């Protein structure tokens, strides 16, 4: 189950502005609060932040909304966040702030393609992430076999992706995030 939060609406409901721009830290704090309340009030494991109606996104607001949302997420909960409807300038700002904090997030672009990863992800992690997206849930052994890697190498990458909350780990099996 997925919950989609249109950030354009979140902006209108939290800040009295006629504009569509996510700028300034106070705006980011207010919008993050809106998102966190929505997540807390929903049983959906995945929340999709929809940037479709957003104009400008500056670094300060990207930091407050996306980076701090990920930093604030309780690692013990089974909750995940993905992005939707981002433009090139949005992804650039988000990528910059996530790199700063060594975080990462997935952006859904095409339903048939693997999500784009932003932030601190190595090409190796991207390869494993794409592999899980294409072949479906698997353990370290099956992913290692598919990629022709050692078990340790695949296990390390899968664990890192699950710690970054880009994959869902359950009893040794790694699942793509529900979308």
């Amino acid at each position, binding site marked *: 189950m997925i919950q989609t939060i249109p950030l354009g609406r979140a902006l209108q409901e939290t800040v009295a*502005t*006629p504009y569509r*721009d996510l700028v*300034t830290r106070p*705006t980011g704090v207010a919008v993050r609060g809106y998102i966190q309340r929505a997540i807390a009030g929903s049983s959906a494991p995945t929340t999709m932040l929809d940037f479709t109606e957003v104009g*400008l*996104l*500056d*670094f300060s607001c990207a930091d407050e909304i996306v980076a701090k949302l990920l930093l604030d997420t309780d690692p013990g909960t089974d909750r995940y966040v993905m992005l939707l409807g981002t433009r090139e300038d949005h992804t650039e*700002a988000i990528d910059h702030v996530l790199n700063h904090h060594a975080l990462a997030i997935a952006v859904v672009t095409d339903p048939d393609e693997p999500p784009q990863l932003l932030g601190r992800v190595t090409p190796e992690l991207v390869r494993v992430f794409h592999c899980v997206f294409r072949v479906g849930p698997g353990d370290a052994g099956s992913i290692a076999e598919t990629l022709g890697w050692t078990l340790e190498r695949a296990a390390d990458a899968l664990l890192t992706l699950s710690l970054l909350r880009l994959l869902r780990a359950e009893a040794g099996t790694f699942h793509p995030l529900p979308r």
Partner: protein
Amino acid sequence: MTRIAEIPAYFDDKSFDHFAQGFGEWPPEERVLFDARAATWASPYGLVGMLTAAQALREAHREKPLFTVPANAEVGRYWARTGFFKHAADLFEIHGKVPRVPTNEDSDQLLDITPVGASEDVHQVVGRIQERAARMLSHELGLEAKATMGFAMALSEACQNIVEHAGTSGWVAVHLYNFRKRLGRRVIVIAVSDAGLGFRRSLEATQAKRFGDRWGDAAALEAALIQGVSRFRDPGRGQGLAGIKRYLSRWDGKISIRSGTARLSIVPQWDDDVPLAEHLPYFPGSQLQVVIPAQEGGAR
């Protein structure tokens, strides 16, 4: 006794130090006269600098300064179109005829002089400027369409420095003009100025010890602009100036910040400015200038 602060005939970031020198020890005890009679041109940096000085005098509880308008009527009309006199009327006792000219939507002003004191002001500035910025950046400077969003982002982050760090309000202006002397191309200039704490006082509590004997205005600017340090302990802070630098490196732009007695710049090849100027005449608060040049072959 009245102290005369002479407005340079050609008032930009280069002649700003001459203007700052006119105040002597800050804050000056005497009433100050801003003598602009001989002025022939002022950049947005010069215009917001004059308002900042007057605001700082007010905040230092000094007598309202005097201001004599430029003798050249055309210069006066240009300054009026930038919104300068609208704000100056509150801060100065103005002498001379102030032209009654509406701000002109078709002029080279991307953003007339606008006060910034709160987050809502940044929303206003960014929201108002985007459409015109898109047109000017592509038509006048030959920049790709995607440069517009980065430009608005840089403007937003520059304005937020006032809201987050100055402790008082400030001013922003964005103009397009021909940088004939230095570059031979058109440029867009963002000027942001406040009369607030300044970088040294803002960062002193967290950074002075680290720099030891080197601590001062220059070291504070280095910490903020080069090292991305912020007074907040929040690890997400300090990314605004980093984001501006990233944008400017892509479009061959220049950033320069003056605070107290120092000015630190990231200087592109087309400019001959020094990266660091120290022991300048003191000026209150912080003054930031961003210059984005027309791409070669892209200027009109």
